[in-house]
């Protein structure tokens, strides 16, 4: 396929792997921030092509993984109310709440609908004026502009039976939290290309300086990731700590101004709890004052504030790169995609699910 196959070319991949082996002299640990990158790394076996000095660890960039349990519970509660329709992205449906998940809520008679775009949810609201339609707005900066657009359009066109249950999160505060953790092992980041397509990468420059950490904005295809790793290793070996843009075909330094303006109009920065990680200051987005009327929490009551207990699940450590999925005693035994103990085993972008799916339990155990 044009515009895709050239980023999966085996000869070019081997050449990049050789280039990495050529510049590396010491062991380095690099974190890919985004779950989409984790998925590609495990799917294509990119880590198998790297020299032994380079260790990739998987970051927190899986939107469903970090959505707090209380929000899932709230979504389930809303879905169960007569007369409401809960619209969600597909991979939220299997994420376990404290007692159930949205799939079970649907089986129990709740009207839960999978949408590809928040504007589809708005359209459902327009067509069902007698029902309350709630869109479960989760994700990083990538999904925020489209979700903001849904709220903007609802207000502009006067669709009053539409609201958003918002649990948006932001990437840079999570990177800071990881860098400031005493257990941190990360020496360089592959920043998330899609997030930077929206936000640009100016906001990463102070991080690179302050924490002396190379940050390479990286795409999602195998050659993107290999090139991102190459640029990281080259900086690390040279003692540099800068922001570089591997994904220049999509990302500009200042990002997408129109998308950012839409986000600024509809959202404000808030404190946010991350599932498995805990509360991080100024790490999320909530609806701005002008959009309070479209806040599902205003209509259906506030989301709970309990700290989730995921039992023996170590998803938090996996999301911070402190453990790899196979290091969990429950991996592949008590925890599988059919019976997940934690969210990282559920989402296709979750590190545990990626290992389970593409490596298999037996081969992982043998590693």
């Amino acid at each position, binding site marked *: *396929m044009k515009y*895709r196959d050239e980023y*999966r*070319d*085996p000869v070019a*991949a*081997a050449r990049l792997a050789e280039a990495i082996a050529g510049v590396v002299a010491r062991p380095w640990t690099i974190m890919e921030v985004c779950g*989409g990158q984790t998925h590609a790394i*495990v*799917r*294509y*076996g*990119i*880590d*198998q*092509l790297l020299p032994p000095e380079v260790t990739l660890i998987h970051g927190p960039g899986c*939107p*469903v993984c970090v959505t707090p349990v209380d929000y899932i519970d709230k979504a389930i509660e809303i879905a169960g109310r007569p007369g409401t329709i809960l619209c969600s*992205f*597909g*991979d*939220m*449906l*299997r994420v376990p709440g404290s007692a159930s998940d949205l*799939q079970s809520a649907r089986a129990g008679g709740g009207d839960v*609908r*999978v*949408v*590809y775009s928040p504007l*589809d949810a708005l359209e*459902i609201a327009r067509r069902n004026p007698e029902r309350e339609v709630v869109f479960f707005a*989760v*994700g*990083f900066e*990538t*999904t925020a502009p489209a979700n903001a657009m849904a709220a903007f359009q609802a207000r502009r066109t006067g669709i009053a039976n539409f609201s958003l249950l918002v649990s948006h999160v932001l990437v840079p505060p999570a990177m800071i939290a990881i860098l400031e953790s005493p257990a941190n092992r990360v020496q360089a980041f592959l920043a998330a290309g*899609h997030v930077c397509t929206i936000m640009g990468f100016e906001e990463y420059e102070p991080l690179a300086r302050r924490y002396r950490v190379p940050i390479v904005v990286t795409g999602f295809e*195998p050659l993107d990731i290999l090139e991102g790793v190459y640029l990281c290793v080259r900086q690390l070996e040279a003692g540099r700590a800068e922001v570089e843009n591997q994904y220049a075909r999509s990302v500009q330094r200042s990002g997408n101004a129109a998308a950012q303006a839409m986000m600024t109009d509809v959202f404000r920065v808030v404190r946010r709890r991350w599932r498995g990680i805990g509360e991080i200051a100024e790490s999320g987005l909530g609806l701005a004052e002008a959009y309070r009327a479209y806040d599902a929490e205003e209509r259906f009551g506030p989301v709970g504030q309990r700290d989730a207990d995921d039992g023996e699940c170590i998803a938090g450590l996996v999301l911070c790169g402190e453990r790899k999925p196979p290091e969990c005693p429950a991996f592949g035994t008590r925890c*599988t*995609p*059919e019976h997940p103990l934690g969210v990282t085993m559920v*989402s*296709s*972008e979750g590190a545990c699910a990626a290992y*389970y*799916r*593409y*490596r*298999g339990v*037996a*081969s992982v155990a043998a590693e």
Partner: protein
Amino acid sequence: MDDIAFSCPVPLPGDETIKLAHGGGGRATERLLNSIFRPALDGPELSRRHDGAHLDLNGPVAMTTDSHVVSPLVFPGGDIGSLAVNGTVNDLAMCGARPAFLSAAFILEEGLETALLARVVASMRAAALAAGVRVVTGDLKVVERGKADGLFITTTGVGTVVAPRAIGPQGVQPGDAVILSGDIGRHGIAIMAAREGLGFESGIESDCAPLSEPVLALLAAGVDVHCLRDLTRGGLAGGLVEIAETSGLSITIEEQVVAVSEPVAAACEVLGLDPFQVANEGRFLAFVPAAEAARAVDILRGYPVSAGAAIIGTVTAGVAGRVSSRGLIGGTRVLDMLSGEQLPRIC
């Protein structure tokens, strides 16, 4: 009846939608059978109007059954009627049998448009003609609105086994070549594209088709077919893992040899789906001795439905149940069955 001149019967006035009375066994049922089912499906067995069919079959017989539920009922490249015929025809073909007779049991939801039912039954007729099978007995029930999703069809099929020895996962041997009959993922993506709420324009048609012709050709040519498996809900990955697990063997495939059409590949990229796990309704795997693989591929390529046949991998004694795929850039991954429902990801 003239096969060519057949057209959808027009529903009688007052019968524009299905009502509970149509399943009551009385006059309304009779009217529905006479206006839609008999004109489309009648043959020597159905025309006897008896409780069952007398059939003549020589030698060992294969039998299979399948319930068909699909939303939407009509999709690009087919509908629940063609699916119900081809699904069962293909299961018989995978047993190394020549499909002969089908039964068809319909569960209709009150309120179903009669014209839609007529269209589906007409499509069953066309599919049965194309596959060389006859519907010889059937059943019809109507349930209250909300108790079914429009229309469910269960078909049971019988056919004469022509393979000289049993075809199945137990026949798979280390060293066997794995042949895939064509490109994958069309049916699943066509359905998703047509499904309400997931609207995107794809132009992709379901691959729904009967597979008996190429399979019978392999057997007629004397190819020593060890196992056949049609790829349905679980996609290519599901089919391979089932065979590996049942046979206790390992399968390695080469990812770049597996054909995925450009629109299907593009849709999978956008939706975050793995084409290896997307449903098919007109593709199958054949496990044959390596020495016969090239000849088998040549035979399959002689039929439109399997014109894209290719050798995609081999069977080894390795880890029982393990299916590995050597990827485009050289890394390998383990293929697994789909866990639960296939759900599109966030971004």
